[in-house]
Structure formats: structure tokens, C-alpha cells
């Protein structure tokens, strides 16, 4: 077992987590679960940023990850408020039933 970890392993982990997030985003029916999959994708990207920040020996990557976090927070707040409103109007949390557009 090597003492140090190649950076590429971090990137692979980031890719796997992102892929899982996409899968959840596409295949789950509960709105809140979909939202959480989006948060998982954002986290994976954060990991990628910080890994490259280490590679380039610059703090900028960390700053970027911080901003991603801030935006994710804002997005989560507003998104959940929207989910509340949708639930009030449609009384359902399944995204398939939210559509009223006649086909």
C-alpha cells in the first residue's frame, strides 16, 4: 500500500459520486430525493475543485468550492420553498403527477 494517494483516485471518486447523483436525478420520483441527488452532484464537483487546487498549489480552487457551497445553500433554500408550494397546490410529491400539460 503506497503511503501517498495519487490525485487521480480523488478524481475517480468525484466521477463516481457525480454519476450516482445523475442516476438519482433521473430515476427517482420523489421531488425531495431528486433535490438531494443534485446536492450530491454538487459535492462531487466540490471534491474535484479541491483536488485540483492541491494539484496547482493555489488556494483559488478552495475559494471556488466555497462559492459553490454558498450557491448550493441559497438554491436549497429557494428550492425547498418551491417544493413546499408545489405540495400545497398539488398535494403530491411525485414529480410525474405534477404535470397538468395535456399531451
Amino acid at each position, binding site marked *: 500500500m503506497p503511503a501517498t494517494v495519487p490525485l487521480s483516485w480523488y*478524481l*475517480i471518486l468525484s466521477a463516481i459520486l457525480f454519476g450516482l447523483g445523475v442516476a438519482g436525478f433521473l430515476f427517482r420520483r*420523489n421531488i425531495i430525493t431528486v433535490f438531494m441527488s443534485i446536492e*450530491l452532484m454538487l459535492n462531487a464537483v466540490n471534491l474535484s475543485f479541491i483536488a485540483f487546487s*492541491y494539484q496547482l498549489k493555489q488556494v483559488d480552487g478552495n475559494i471556488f468550492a466555497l462559492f459553490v457551497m454558498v450557491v448550493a445553500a441559497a438554491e436549497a433554500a429557494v428550492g425547498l420553498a418551491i417544493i413546499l*408550494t408545489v405540495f400545497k397546490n398539488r398535494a403530491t*410529491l411525485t414529480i410525474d403527477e405534477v404535470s397538468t400539460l395535456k399531451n
Partner: protein
Amino acid sequence: MDAILFLLFAAIAVACGINLVVQTHPISSAISLIGVMGALAVLYLLLGAEFMAAAQMIVYAGAIMVLFVFVIMLLNAGAEKKRNTATFAKIFGVPALVGFLGLVSFLIQKEMLPRTDHVKFGGFVDKDGKALGTAEAVGNALFTQYLLPFEVTSILILIAILGAVVLARKEI
């Protein structure tokens, strides 16, 4: 030592991620997500980003996920009803996903391995030897080079608060 820690927490992160996607009840998914975030915080520490690790735990796991859990409780979200998945997806879904991720991993390894460093705990320093992931370094950059985005994000948060309040209001 680093490698063991990395593998352990990476495994935790992946396991929680799979759990998030697979579980039917949203609260289980939320708890899994918290697990993912915790594991990622440790990984940030390994990468020398102390400040980010702390921020991750405080903001993400401590605030955002709590908000999620609040909403799940408020809406009394139940477990998803079972639905007939197509046979195609049942047989091919998981292997396809595994295969795809494996391919991606292989490609990344092939590409990035010769071009990237090895991560050592405490290796995130600049050429003078000063640690870069500390609060001091982050704060320095944040308040000098990235001041404008920083101020803009404060306004962004203000707008988000306003939006959330307006949207979640009780209808008159």
C-alpha cells in the same frame, strides 16, 4: 496511512451515495447524504483544505441538510410507492451503470495518473512553505482577490431568503 484513510472514507462516501439513490424513504436518503458529506469533509482534510472541511460540516451538513430534514418532516413525506420498473432497466440498469463508471474511472486513471501529484497530508503548501488551505490563506484571498464575488454572494443569499419567505408564505 493516508491511503488507508482515503480508501476507508471513500468507501463510506460511495456506500452512502448508493444508499441515497436506492432508498425509498426520503429521510433515509437525507441521512445518507449527511454521511456522504461527512466522509467528504475528511477527504478535504486529507487534501489539506482545513477551512473547507470545517465549512462543509458546518454549512452543508449542519445547515442545509437540517433544512432538508425539516422539510421532509413538515411534508410528512412517505416512502415512495413501488412501481413496476421496466424489465430492461431491471436487468441492464445496474450493470450498465457499473460498466459506465468503470470505463470513466479507467480513462481518468490512464489520463491523470502520469500528470498529477501524489497527495500527502500536509502537502498543500505554497513555494514559501506557507500552508494554503488554512482559514488565513482562504480569508486572504477572499477579501483581496475575490472581494467582489464575495459581496455579490451576500446579496445572492439575501435574495434567496426573500424568495424563500415569499414562496413559503401562507396564502391569504
